[in-house]
Structures are given as C-alpha cells and as structure tokens.
C-alpha cells in the first residue's frame, strides 16, 4: 500500500515551490521500443540535491527511464529538459558495470581522471584513496578486474562514477551484487556527497525493501506507468 501523491505536471515557465527549478524535467514522456510502449505518459521533476529511488518490478521501465534521463534516446514523445550549468556532468553506474577486465582496479578507476576537473593527478589520487578506503576496497587496487568478485566489481564501478565528480548520478541497480552492509556503505557515501556537494542521486532498484531503509523520494513504476511518488519511509 502506497501513500503519497502523483507527480504534479510541470508546466513550462511555472514557479516552483521554494523557487528551485528541477535539474531534470520530464513532461508527457512516451517511449516506444519496437512495438511496445515502454514508458507511458511520464511526468517527473527531480530537484537539485534530491535523492530519488526508482522502484518497480523487472520490466517496469526503470532502466529505460534512466537511459532516457541520460539522453540515450533521441526518439521519444514528450519534453525532457536538463538544467545543467556549463561544468555539470551526469555520472552513470551501469547494470552491466562496463569495466575493462584485463586492467587492474586502479587502472579502471583512472578513466575518471579528468584534468579539467582536478587540479592535478595528486588531488585525484587523494580522492580515489578516500573513496576506496571508505568502501573498504583500497587494498585491492592492484588486483586484476577479471579476478575480482561481483561485489567488488560493483564497488569499483560505483567509485569510478563518484570520481568523475558528477552533479547527478544515475545508478542502475548499483547494489544488486552487494550484501546489506556494503549497500549501506554505498548509500552512506552517496548521502555524504549529497550533503557535501549537493549531489543529485537517481537510483533504480527492484528491491523496495532495501530502498525503504534509506531516506529519499521513491518513484514507483509499473508496466511503464508512474504509479506512486513519495517518501521512502512511507512504504
């Protein structure tokens, strides 16, 4: 049983409560893949610094919604708007992780070193150590990716995204291979970055039980329709 309200439809040029325009705005979105309608009439606003969980059963359209937000679809009906400043960036955690197996964990993390963002390599290295220590993977940095287990790989993929210093993280099942303690660590660090840097998090998960233990807003999808939006603690 859900408590909450349906997402109010966003109207262009309308004033928002608190005066904070959404960082992501979706209006009357319909996505058709092949012959099937994957997302049906989605209206959604995600405010800067918000933590949002997209939940729903398999095939509900969670991944499609994330891909749409990431700008992977050119052909969709409706309007979508990213309210980014020049240096803002959308980081992603993919369900299939997308790691290079024959490189070490550290080499995989180096892909996030952007000289435009970090003052120098030392600063990047310091942040890399901070995050890996927090997640407890700092002693595995020299390990070849192919020899890492599923949970470790997931934490590496997560670290790589955080190291790119995004303003929005789109995470597709980022904790599906993790036990609750590690999943909690992931959430804690996201929460920390949310407080420290105003990071916006969009987290897709089929595990409603898990996300109900974290604080944030839940958007529940079913058969491509947005059926509920409200605070996680109300589940």
């Amino acid at each position, binding site marked *: 049983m859900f408590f909450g309200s349906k997402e109010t439809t966003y109207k262009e040029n309308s004033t928002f409560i608190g005066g904070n325009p959404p960082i992501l705005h979706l209006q009357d979105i319909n996505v058709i893949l092949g012959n099937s309608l994957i997302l049906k009439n989605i209206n959604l606003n995600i405010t800067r610094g918000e933590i949002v969980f997209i939940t729903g059963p398999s095939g509900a359209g969670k991944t499609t919604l994330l891909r749409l937000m990431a700008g992977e679809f050119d052909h969709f009906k409706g309007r979508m708007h990213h309210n980014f400043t020049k240096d803002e960036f959308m980081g992603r955690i993919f369900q299939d992780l997308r790691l*290079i197996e024959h490189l070490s964990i550290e080499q995989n993390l180096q*892909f996030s*070193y952007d000289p435009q963002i970090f003052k120098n390599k030392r600063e990047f290295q310091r942040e890399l150590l901070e995050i890996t220590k927090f997640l407890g993977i700092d002693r595995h940095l020299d390990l070849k990716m192919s020899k890492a287990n599923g949970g470790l790989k997931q934490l590496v993929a997560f670290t790589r995204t955080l190291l790119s210093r995004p303003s929005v993280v789109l995470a597709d099942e980022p904790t599906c291979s993790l036990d609750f303690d590690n999943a909690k660590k992931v959430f804690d660090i996201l929460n920390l970055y949310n407080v420290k840097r105003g990071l916006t998090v969009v987290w897709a998960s089929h595990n409603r039980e898990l996300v109900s233990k974290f604080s944030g807003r839940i958007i529940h999808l079913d058969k491509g329709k947005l059926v509920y939006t409200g605070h996680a603690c109300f589940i």
Partner: protein
Amino acid sequence: MFYLKNMISTCLAKPIMGMGFIVTSFLLITSTFLLPTSQDYLKKVAKKGNDGPFFHALISSKENFSRIKRKVTSLPGVETVTILSQNDLQAKVKGILGNLDMENDLAGIDLNFVGLKVLFKNKLKLKSQTLIRDYIKRLVGDRNITLGATVATEEEGKIGPLQIFEKLGSWSLWAFIGLLFLLWLSFTWFFCSKLNEFSYLIETYQRKTKVAVKSYLGFILTMALPTIALIFFLPQSSWIPMIALAIMMIIGLLILKKSHRWSSEC
C-alpha cells in the same frame, strides 16, 4: 596530446594488437607515399640487373664515332653504346700520367680520342661477344682502335629481391600494398574495438566527446606528417598517397562506427 596519449595507452593495454596496428599503418602510409619513387627505382635496378658484360673502346677522334655508334648499336646482342666524354677521358689520362711524373711527355702523346662503352645483352654467348668485338675492329681499322677487356657484370645471372619485384611486373608493388592493406585492416578492426571501449569510458566519466574519432584521426595524421614532409624532397609526387590516406581515415571511422561500443541494452 590527450588523444595521442589515449591511443598510446590503448596500444599498451593490448600490445600485440597495438604494435601490429602502428607498424602496418606506418608501412602502409610510407609505401603508398613512396610508390612512384619505388617504381622508378625498381625499374633502374631491374635494368641494371638485366645488363650483360661490357667493354671499353678508344677510337681516334678523327673517326666518325657517331656512325660507329649507330652501326654497333644496330648489331644483335648489343644493348647500348655510350659515348664517353672526350674531356673526361683527357682529364683522366692527364691525371694518371701526372701521377707517374710523365707530364713533360704529354706533348708527344695524342690525346684526341673518343671513348665508347659497348654493353652486351644479358647472357650473350662468348662467341657472339668475340664476333662483335671483331666487327668493331674491322669497322674502325685495327690501328685506330684500342679495345679494353670484356668485363662481366657482378650481378649477372643473380636475381635479388628487388629484381623479383620487377620480374613479376609493376603490379607486384600494388599486390604488396594490397596485402599490407589487408593486414592493416584486420589489425585496425580489432584495435578500433578496443579504442572504442576505452574512449566510451572516457566520454562517460570525463567531460569529453568523440574521443575515439579524435584519437584515431590525430594518430593517423601525426604518423603521415613526416611522410608528407618527405614528399617535398622526392623527385616525383602523386595523388595516390593522399587518396590512400583519405581511404585509411574513412575506413577507420567506419570501423569505429560499426565496432563494439558496449551494449546499450541493459
């Protein structure tokens, strides 16, 4: 520089594939750029390889040496007859006599003669060579001519790798380039998929776009620059290398577009 570094790190991640791509790209660019010059060079080498034995003849300059040249050239078994410069011959003789302290005797020596170099066709029988020599003697007169010994060409009968190219015909160079191209294509195919993966991650986690395309084009152009510069020093230039370079770029871009770039279906 960032894009070249990206190419290098991709090469280092897969060293055999990377080195194969770099070496075949370099060879392909260089061989197409040097194609016109190579064809010329091979023709010269082949001609040299076909040369038979030769001998020198000194004839008094009073003789009509042009007529002699014409008559000898028309003989079967004679490849070419070259007239050696009168001034060069005189300078050489003076030099030799000078070394022997015989400069004072120069006044008594008649230096007015012309040198001829008669080149036989390759593998000409000894009997035919003797007949030709006898014919020249009769033509000029025994007293008016001095014949040098017949010198066999060192490479006569031997076929080097360069002669093989010429023996096979001018298309052999094209066949070589074709083979090289196929090799390059297979290395490029595998290398580009790796480059695409690396570039995809850079684009996803850094604020950059079209990394693979920029890296590939930057690398090919950097590799071609020294060869393009070399064109200005070569006697012959042609459009073939430019067309080849454009083809390499287009094919590389098509492979980058087609090759694996992580599955977008999750």
